[in-house]
């Protein structure tokens, strides 16, 4: 409960400040989605708008930080949300900081998937990639040592993954029923995690431990086939991350090993992403950077779309005044039964406006494969962001 009180108290104090010793910023986003292959009875397009307010206020030593979003969607109730992604106090001590309230944290090194990123639940219905997370109600501490950074986490009040409506996109087309939990405390079960990260020369390394409710649920069809039941397993895992930074080559590895206890029993699992990113700086007399990405994913958890995926991608950074860049990623499973292609292009229009174009394409040889269920979810998306 203290994490909730911390969150609400942080929000109250942010709103109550007569004079900020900090900053308030906002982002207004308007998004249009088009689904060219939508099946009958599903939406052919989507309209949504989001307001994000970010603020912080410094006291003498401590700080309160807030990041709040309100998202409205014309048709998809799954995308509608009012969320305190961050609302926390940071209290500094001599060699460590304590944080109380909702926090967002990123762990990982890879580009295509971050198997060790276990702190936050994903706001998957937002369909905005790695940035759409839900705040983790938590008490955490970070100790800064000469050899690295040690984090300890206590996370309460489990956040369920968000899902789009069954007639919206992306969706399997089957409604999602209420969640079930392997842990008897259900939503009220507490999670614990720790991570040590540091760097030595060209190597950035990290190791982590997690005990708690798995963030990704196992989906199973209910008895009459009318809905999918999300079942959240108990997960005990250790994670490892490494990145080698060479002159033009980055080598990345992250790996998660452990057990999941769920309705289908107790299973050991391994999930690994290993990859390389090679960048050509200023090729053929340009000022562009062209990065070639190759990653291999292994994930034998029941939640994974396939055991093994190969990922290839290209990132082009134009280094122009408008900060234009393009990222293309193609994923294919080992048996080439299913594949996924995504393209993301962003560009600044002026100092207060930027535009993003994304497209996603799912291909599957069989309708009952993971991507087969998303066969009508191919999408073109245009997002306009205004900053104030």
């Amino acid at each position, binding site marked *: 409960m203290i994490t909730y009180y911390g969150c609400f108290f942080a929000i109250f104090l942010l709103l109550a400040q007569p004079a900020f010793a*900090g*900053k308030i*910023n906002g*982002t207004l986003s308007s998004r249009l989605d088009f689904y060219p292959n939508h099946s009958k009875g599903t939406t052919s397009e989507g309209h949504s708008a989001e307001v994000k307010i*970010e603020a*912080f206020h*410094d006291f003498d030593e401590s*700080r309160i930080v807030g990041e709040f979003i309100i998202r409205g969607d014309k048709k998809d109730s799954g995308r509608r949300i009012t969320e305190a992604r961050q609302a926390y106090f*940071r209290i500094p001590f001599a060699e460590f*900081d304590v944080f109380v309230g909702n926090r*967002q*944290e*990123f762990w*990982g090194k890879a580009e295509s998937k971050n198997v060790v990123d276990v702190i936050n639940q994903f706001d998957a219905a937002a369909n905005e990639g*790695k*940035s759409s997370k839900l705040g983790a109600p938590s008490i955490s501490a*970070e100790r*800064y040592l000469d050899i*690295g*950074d040690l984090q300890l986490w206590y996370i309460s009040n489990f956040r369920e993954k968000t899902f789009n409506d069954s007639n919206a996109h992306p969706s399997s087309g089957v409604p999602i029923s209420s969640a079930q939990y392997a842990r008897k405390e259900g939503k009220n079960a507490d999670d614990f995690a720790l991570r040590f*990260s540091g*760097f030595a020369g060209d190597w*950035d390394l990290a190791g982590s431990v997690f005990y708690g409710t798995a963030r990704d649920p196992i989906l199973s069809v209910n008895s009459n086939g009318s809905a999918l039941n999300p079942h959240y397993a108990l997960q005990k895992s250790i994670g490892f991350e490494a*990145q080698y*930074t*060479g*002159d*033009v*080559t*980055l080598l990345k590895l992250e790996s998660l090993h452990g057990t999941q206890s769920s309705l289908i029993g107790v299973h050991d699992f391994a999930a690994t992403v290993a990859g390389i990113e090679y*960048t050509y*700086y*200023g090729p053929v007399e340009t*000022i562009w*950077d062209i990065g070639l990405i190759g990653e291999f994913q292994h994930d034998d958890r029941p939640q994974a779309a396939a055991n093994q995926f190969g990922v290839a991608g290209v990132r082009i950074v134009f*280094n*122009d*005044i*408008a*900060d234009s860049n393009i990222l293309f990623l193609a994923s294919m499973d080992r048996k080439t039964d299913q594949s996924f292609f995504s393209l993301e292009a*962003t560009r*600044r229009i*002026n*100092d*207060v*406006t*930027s535009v993003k174009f994304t497209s996603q394409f799912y291909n599957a040889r069989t309708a009952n494969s993971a991507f087969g269920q998303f066969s009508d979810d191919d999408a073109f998306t245009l997002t306009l*962001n*205004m*900053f*104030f």
Partner: protein
Amino acid sequence: MKLSTITMFIAISFAVITTTALASPEKGLEIAIKADSRDKGFGNSTAQITMILMDKYGQSTERAIRNRTFEGDNEGDKSLVIFDSPGDVRGTAFLSHTKKADSDDQWLYLPALKRVKRIASSNKAGPFMGSEFSYEDIASQEVEKYTYNYLRDEELNGLDCFVVEYDPVDPKSGYKRQIVWMDKAEYRVHKIDFYDRKDALLKTLTYEDYNQYLDKFWRSNRLVMINHQTGKKTKLLFADWKFRTGMTERDFEKSALKRTR
């Protein structure tokens, strides 16, 4: 005709021999070491920067940046650059640990993801924020990063200056050489001509409006970089310089990036 050709040949040969005789790597290094030692002891500093990017038609756009620098003892300086505008990069932070002999260590903080990302430092010739300044232009200037050659004395803007050639040691530098004008009285840089890898004049940087802080350290409030090959220009306007602010080396560690505001 033949006589004049011979005369010209003799004159050019004499000029080359004279220049070679005057040019001095030892004196060049001595000047660079003296300039570096004059700036030792500033501890740490902060400044607000307005970056104005202008295209060849004179159209301009602005960026707001904050810069924090921590003076290194044995290694190079550590610097943190925080972007305040434009809106889409607001909160992004760039941390660099300069190395005297090796490649710099660099990290980027991406606020939307709350992600600290180590980046390769071989992109030193690439443009910084789409400007005419490259990453190596904004990096801390360490003596060991160049070899030197004193060329001549010359007056610039009414000041007696040394003219010294700086040759980057790192083959990944975007420059073959830099010609630096530094005043003899205070060892302040006033102008740099940058020559690209094909030895063509690429850019000229001028330093204006110098002010002295703590009775010792000179800082320019106005840097203007002109790209002769594209006609583009970038101005850096510095304000609100502060020294010895109470920042510690911890504030320049990788883990501090996500706490930066």
